[in-house]
């Protein structure tokens, strides 16, 4: 059996873990919404500022999941946590900005270009945590619980012991982020099935 042990939501102005609000966007702040969330995490990770929105979203979500489950790092070997992410826009949010860099600003930006692949966020999370496990990024027409269950089960039967999964809907200011942690060696949480993913996702 495997279980969803932690889940996390971020939208345009609020963030919650296991359904409980962690932070609401302060409209008066000069910081971006994701920067407010980063500061609230109270961690030192300057690489965060170089990341694009997609990577920042995945990074914040994964840090919140770790905070809710501090044993996550110590319970598993460095290659036992798989990363399974998807969205329907790929890296479009940064693709649009990179295209502007060569069309409007006449200088293709290398620092934007390196973020024009959706799986870069998996690399950022892997680097942060020194996780050498499995990676998969899929682009789906819409949020598809079946995909997460099907591929999640594949991962859990081929050597991974936990799956950090997520839907990262980031495009031109729209934020629809849902991350969840699936663990096999656990005695808490709800069963990892389509019904519970739909329930926790809420969209």
């Amino acid at each position, binding site marked *: 059996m495997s279980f969803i042990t932690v889940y996390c939501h971020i939208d345009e102005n609020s963030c919650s873990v296991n359904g409980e609000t962690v932070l609401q966007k302060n409209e008066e702040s000069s910081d971006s919404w994701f920067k407010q969330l980063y500061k609230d995490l109270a961690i030192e990770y300057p690489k965060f500022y170089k990341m694009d929105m997609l990577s920042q979203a995945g990074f914040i979500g994964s840090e919140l999941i770790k905070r809710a489950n501090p044993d996550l790092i110590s319970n598993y070997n460095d290659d036992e946590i798989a990363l399974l992410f998807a969205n329907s826009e*790929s890296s*479009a949010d940064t693709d649009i900005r990179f295209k502007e860099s060569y069309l409007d600003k006449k200088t293709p930006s290398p620092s934007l*270009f390196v973020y024009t692949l959706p799986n870069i966020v998996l*690399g950022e999370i892997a680097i942060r945590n020194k996780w050498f496990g*499995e990676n998969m990024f899929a*682009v*789906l027409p819409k949020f598809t619980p079946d995909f997460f269950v099907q591929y999640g089960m594949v991962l859990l*039967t081929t050597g991974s012991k936990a799956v950090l999964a997520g839907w990262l809907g980031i495009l031109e200011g729209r934020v629809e982020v849902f991350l969840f942690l699936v663990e096999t060696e656990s005695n808490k949480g709800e069963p990892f099935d389509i019904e519970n993913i739909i329930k926790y996702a809420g969209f």
Partner: protein
Amino acid sequence: MIYIGAEEIISPLGQNMEENFQAVCENRSGVSLIPHAGFNDESIHLSKITSISSQNKFEYLLIDILENVLKQIDPQIVSSKKTIVIVSSTKGDLDRNISSPFTDSIAAFAKYFKLANEPLVVSNACISGVLAINAAGNFIKTGLYDHAIVIGCDVISDFVLYGFQSLFAVSSTPCAPFDANRNGITLGEGCSAVVLSNSKEIFKKTSFQLFTGRSANDANHISGPSRTGEGLFRSVKKTLEQNQISVDEIDFISAHGTATIFNDEMEAIAFDRLEINDKPLNSLKGYFGHTLGAAGVIETAISIQMMRNNLLVKSLGYKESGTSKTLNIATENKSSELNTILKTASGFGGCNASLVIRKL
């Protein structure tokens, strides 16, 4: 057992598998100097398909490749509920809709063939193709599907070319994987397919056995290869262990070999750590350019053709050793009994993947 076969390729080297493999056997390259292609209007070496007009090229390639595949298998499986189509691609049809680069093309493709299940798009940088084949094999193993069609496709765009130019990663000459004078990638475009099944009866020609492999992240850098080859080392090690294959059984390595200084060096280090650096090895980028999300499928298709023909194809562009660890790079075509092939891939985001194919 997972069977794999019905391999097909569309590239500048030909419209089908036969034409492509013939060209590769003759050591012909699809790479040519394209005038005014670069950001500053400079001429750039590319492996570009000129037979299809640029509009909706991605969609046409998906349809054309599956038409090719249909001639190689029981055509009824395509629209079966027990069949999944997996498309591996980095950028899809970016020029058609930058905000949703796959939606229109994939929907049109699915409708054209009346697919029962929505295709899955794997977009995991340059390991997309190998990862998609492994995912397909695992879906069949778990009983979710009986058959899978994996299609790798990427087309050249200003977007991707200008991006690699901005990283100073584009070679001034046709790319030379693993060579001492290599200085970057040559971009390519192409489309390739393989079919996987739990039944060998669906294939009109001989099929092969697929041993699905593992992926591993370097956990090191988002755009620079690991200095120790850690992710590739781990991926191959796990793939061999999981399938109980010893290194002695590997006859050949179809490497990634992008021809950047650091990627090829990283691969050499990983293969040395795995103690497989004496195995005959090639990179096919000299023939097809770097086709990104299509590369893993194209290179798997050529590997299968090499096994069918017992012909080890030379690594085009290679002249003298240019990595700190010595590799056994194929410098000539050579008749050779090829029973077991290891295919590897590595990409941005620090990802690595591998698989093994064996003659039955």
